[in-house]
Each structure stands twice: as structure tokens, then as C-alpha cells.
């Protein structure tokens, strides 16, 4: 075991997988000599060369579209989109092409491609360096969506994503890159896609979260524990395919459910979790299925007062827990 930052776990996993599997290549903007704007690919250009670590022009649709083609011709590309906010020019390639390729060809073609992108706010990134884009893609059958919250999960899930025979979107909260540390085993291990984790067992309220919010949910759980509220935190880890069983069995046990997400509240990813819980655990509920989520404005404002207002934090989550606990 070694203590690693979130971004170290991601970088070292890519390096290890590329050493083992020649089919894995990396492409994106500034991923080469510079090593990426966050240094997620630092050193890989030197180790694997320009054939396998490819600096692309500023052409996000090309990054994804060419990765789809390369995946159909024997490679396993890892495409980096510099910021999740810049993924939208590639929306058509992801949604019309990558997601639908296997289904529309009746299993003729698959797209074993991993798309990594830093997402999320709280880093003075403003409207276009802070977005949470997971809801757009989790909506689409044919795409897998992963958001890890620990270095251990990031390494294990990234290995699973790269090995997977279908397209996986792997979103990394950029505020966690250097602020989150954790133990990562030296040996190779997998964390399977589609499996949530109970990161804080409890009995009275289930809090469902992912990414940075999974950390904030744990902090909130500790705060309300001192007030006598027992919270069970479910870290989804994979948004789609969703581990419904873990979600539903926790809610059936606690009878209350709070879903936390950083994205705008309206039609955010957590809205679907609320629907599933309302539909499939109704008989067990002792309070309204509730949400703490970002405000419905078109982006995270730059000014620090406004950004703090926007961001969900442990205090806001703790308030949500208290309200729900009062039922």
C-alpha cells in the first residue's frame, strides 16, 4: 500500500496499463510533452512515445470520433477531454455514434474506448471549467458512466473501464486531483463497473452521492452523528449501469433517502435515483425522497462569493439530512 493523490492513482494506472497492453493509446489536447493541463498524463509521452501519446489539434469531435474508429480497428484508446465543459462538440460522436454502434450493428461492432474528463466546480473555474455533465451521458443507453471518489476506486475502476468492450465515460472531479489522498495497493486489482459502495454504514437515512459529493456526504454524516442521526452513505461509483440493488436495499433499511449532486437540480442525474427509489421502495419510505443539488443557473459563477453560494457543501448536506430526519 502507498498513499497516493487522486491524480497520481489515475496517472500511474494509465502508465501501468499501457506498459502491459500495447493496444492502449492516449489522445487529447496537451497530453504529450506537457502531460496534460492537470498533469494527469505527465511522463507518459516520454515513456511511450508520440505514436501512443498523441497531442491532437483542438478538435474534440475528432478526439472522440477517431477514438471510435481506432477502437474498431484493434486499439483501446483513452481519450482525454481537457475539461468536461468542452465535451459538447463531441456530443454527436458520443451519443449518436459510440453509444449506438453495438446496438445498431446488432453486435457487429463495439467501441472499447475510455473517455476521461475532469469535471466539477469549487476551483474558480467559472461557467466553462466547472460543469457537471454526467446527466447528459448517463441518460443514453450504450454509454457507461463512472465517477470515482477515492484513489483506490479511481485506479480499480479505470482498469475496468479500459478493459471494458464498450465506451466508458470516466469523470474525475478536478478539485479532488491533489486534495484527496488514499491508499492504493501496488498490485493490480479491479473495481468492477456497476457496483456501488457503502462508505458509511448507518440506520436512519440513506445519503446517495458520487464524486466530490461522496466526500462531502461523509463529512455531513459525521456532523449529524453528533446530533444522534445515523446516516448510511452510498457512493455510487458507477452512474450507469446503476447498482440499483445497493441503493434500494439501503433505502428499504433506513426508510429515508437524500440524493446529493453538484449539477443543477432540475433533471440532474440524482432525479433518476429519486424516481427509482419512489417507484421501487415506496412501501418503505418514511419521508419524501429529497435532493440537495446545485442551483438552476446556467453555470458556476466566477466570483468567490457567488461560487460558494452555488456549490453544495457538507453544511448544506447536513441541513438536508436534518430536515429529512425530522419526518
Amino acid at each position, binding site marked *: 500500500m502507498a498513499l497516493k493523490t487522486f491524480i497520481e492513482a489515475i496517472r500511474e494506472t494509465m502508465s501501468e496499463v499501457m506498459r502491459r497492453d500495447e493496444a492502449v493509446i492516449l489522445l487529447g489536447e496537451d497530453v504529450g510533452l506537457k502531460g496534460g493541463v492537470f498533469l494527469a498524463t505527465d511522463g507518459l509521452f516520454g515513456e511511450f512515445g508520440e505514436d501512443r501519446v498523441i497531442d491532437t489539434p483542438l478538435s474534440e469531435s475528432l478526439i472522440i470520433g477517431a477514438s471510435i*474508429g481506432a477502437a474498431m480497428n484493434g486499439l483501446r484508446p483513452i481519450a482525454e477531454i481537457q475539461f468536461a465543459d468542452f465535451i459538447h462538440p463531441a456530443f454527436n460522436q458520443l451519443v449518436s*455514434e459510440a453509444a449506438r454502434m453495438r446496438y445498431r450493428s446488432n453486435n457487429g461492432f463495439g467501441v472499447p474506448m475510455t473517455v476521461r474528463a475532469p469535471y466539477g466546480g469549487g476551483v474558480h473555474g467559472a461557467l466553462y471549467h466547472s460543469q457537471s455533465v454526467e446527466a447528459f451521458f448517463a441518460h443514453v443507453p450504450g454509454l457507461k458512466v463512472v465517477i470515482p471518489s477515492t484513489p483506490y476506486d479511481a485506479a480499480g475502476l479505470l482498469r475496468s473501464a479500459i478493459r471494458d468492450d*464498450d465506451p466508458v465515460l470516466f469523470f474525475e472531479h478536478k478539485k479532488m486531483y491533489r486534495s484527496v489522498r488514499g491508499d492504493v495497493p501496488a498490485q493490480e486489482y479491479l473495481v468492477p463497473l456497476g457496483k456501488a459502495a457503502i462508505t458509511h454504514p448507518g440506520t436512519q437515512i440513506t445519503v446517495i452521492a458520487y464524486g466530490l459529493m461522496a466526500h462531502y456526504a461523509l463529512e455531513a454524516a459525521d456532523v449529524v452523528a453528533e446530533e444522534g442521526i445515523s446516516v448510511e452513505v452510498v457512493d455510487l461509483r458507477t452512474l450507469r449501469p446503476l447498482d440499483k440493488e445497493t441503493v434500494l436495499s439501503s433505502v428499504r433499511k433506513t426508510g429515508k433517502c437524500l440524493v446529493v449532486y453538484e449539477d443543477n437540480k432540475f433533471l440532474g442525474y440524482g432525479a433518476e435515483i429519486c424516481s427509482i427509489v419512489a417507484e421501487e421502495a415506496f412501501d418503505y419510505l418514511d419521508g419524501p425522497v429529497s435532493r440537495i443539488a446545485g442551483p438552476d443557473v446556467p453555470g458556476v459563477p466566477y466570483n468567490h462569493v457567488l461560487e460558494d453560494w452555488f456549490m453544495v457543501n457538507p453544511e448544506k448536506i447536513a441541513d438536508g439530512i436534518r430536515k429529512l430526519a425530522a419526518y
Partner: protein
Amino acid sequence: MSTSNLAASVGLTDEDLVGMYRVIATARAVDERMWILNRAGRIPFVISGQGHEGAQAAIAWPLEKRKDWIAPFYRSIATCLTFGMRAQDILTAQYAKAIDLSSGGRQMPGHYGNVANNLVSLSSPVATQMLHAVGIALAAKIRKTGQVAMTSMGEGSSNQGDVHEGLNFAAIHKLPFILCVENNGYAISVPVERQLATPNVADRASGYGIPGVIVDGSDVLACYRAAKEAVDRARRGDGPTLLEAKVIRLTAHSSDDQQTKYRSAEELAALQDKDPLPRFRGELRDAGILTEELEARIAAEVKVEIDEATDFAENAPEPTPDTAMKWVFAEDWPGETPPAWGFGGDHGLEGHAGDTSAAEGAVD
């Protein structure tokens, strides 16, 4: 195997030229059959390649089957036939039957693709396949496979951003890639003057530092020569080519379009003189390659093939709802639940078999 002067002039054998002719004739015959089946109410939709077949067969010809790759588009019937698909595979797609090689009946007709023949599955948003072919060429270069990747599309599609992004990247990395633009002068109803500010799509090639080649798409052997040069260039590692074939569109855009609304009777009549099929037939006759007997034999064989393929497609089983949730992913995911109504056949909806209501009033 004999070699006439005509065949020798392009470095091929007479057998090659007869093979090309057979593909073009088969593509035309299957296309005409599709329209008949549509108007007879047997299939809901047709999108056609008539007028493009000569360029398609000739340009796909120098590529190596089951080694090289083609990302085709919705008019690419002759391209797909050249690369290994059969008339039967085209017609089972028209009927959207379970056995349809391209999609098992999931896609609209015209969305041909087939993994066994290295023909990439395509979607309906145009020009997206450009980047798949570029990525295939990138993998070929990295893996040193010696493969060439080509995509084809109309001049309308060539205005999409993906074309710019793909040509730029392919040129930077000297990828073994060919963009074939089949310019028929119309993006559905919009004439080329309203699509391009320059006379030719190929004029854009200089902006990427690659060759732009213009060829008469009704001149089959000129198309072959140009494509052969582009394939050789790609194979040598000298990078991509933008090949523009000026073709004609003999039919409406699709069975739901009425082209007389935007093309004059004179314009449509003049197209007959440029039809690649009779023109190539005449060249082969003049060269002594296509005797009366051989021509009649090919015509008879093509007719039998199309008739049998039609019967086969007509009688092939439909896909069943219990297969409809398969292949979202490579494996099944228990978490993805089926609809409340399960997989029964009767959903209380009107069937659409033979429904051509969308085309009413649009008949040419």
C-alpha cells in the same frame, strides 16, 4: 484471363472490368427493385444510389477486401457490393429482417455496414463516419497493418465540421486515408451553388496540404485510375487524398422526396446522357470485352439474383421483441429493466408493414 487494350490502359484484366460491370449492373437492378417494392407498399422507405454506381464500384475496386476499410454512406450500394456484400444483404436491409447483416432490422434501409467485410456501420447524422475512418487509419498506422481506410459521402455532408477536423488530423499524421466525395450537385433540394463558395469540394484540399483530385464520376475507368493513385499513395505512407467524383443523382433524394419540385424536366432529361451504366457498357462493347452473349448472360444472372434475393428477404423472419434489449452492451446488465409490457408481440400499436403514408403526395 485476357487483357484488352482498354483493360491494359488502367493496369487491369478484362475479368476485372467485367466484374466491375457486373457490380454496377447489380447495384442498379437492386436499386430499381427497391423502388418497385416501395411503390408496391412492400417496404416503407428507399434511399437510392442510382447514378453513383460507376464511381462507387471503380473507387472501391483498388482497395483490398477484408483488409482495407470503408466507412460508406447511405447511397453506397455499389460500394458495399464491391466490398463483399450481396444483393440479398441489401434487400434484407430494405425489409429490415432479422437476418439483415447491417443491423438485424434495427436501422433504416441505406445504413449499410458489415463487420466481416470491414464496412463500418453508419448513422443518419451525416459525415460522422469521416472520423471513424480517420481513426481506423490512425490505428492502421500505429499497428503497422498496411491497411487503407476510405470514407465516402455526398458534397452536402462535406460541409460538416467533422470533415474539417478529420482532414486536418489525417493530413498532420499522413494517415492512410481517402475521403471520397460523391458530388451529385444536391443536398436533398439545395443545389451545390448554395452549399459551396468554390466550384469544387476538392479545392479545399490545398488548405490541408493534401492532393485534391476531381474526376468525372460517370467515367468508370477514370474513377478507377484516380482511386488507384490515392490508394497507392496512402499505402506508401504519403498521406490522405481528397477525391471528388462528379456524379449524377438520377432519382429523388429518397422515396419521401419529390425532386421535380426543385429540378426542371430538362435537367432531369439531360441526366440520361451521363448515366454511368450505359456509358461503361458501351466502352466494354467497343473494346470487345462485352460480347452480346456475355451481356445477355450477365443480365439474366443479375435478374435471377435479384428475384431470388427479393423472395428470400420477403420470406425471412422478422426480429422479435425479446431480442430488442440485446447488444446495448457486450453483456447483459440485470439493472437495465425491460418495459412494463415485457416482450410480447402485441403492444396495441398499429403495425407499419407496408405503410407508405409518409410518402403520399411525394411520388415523382
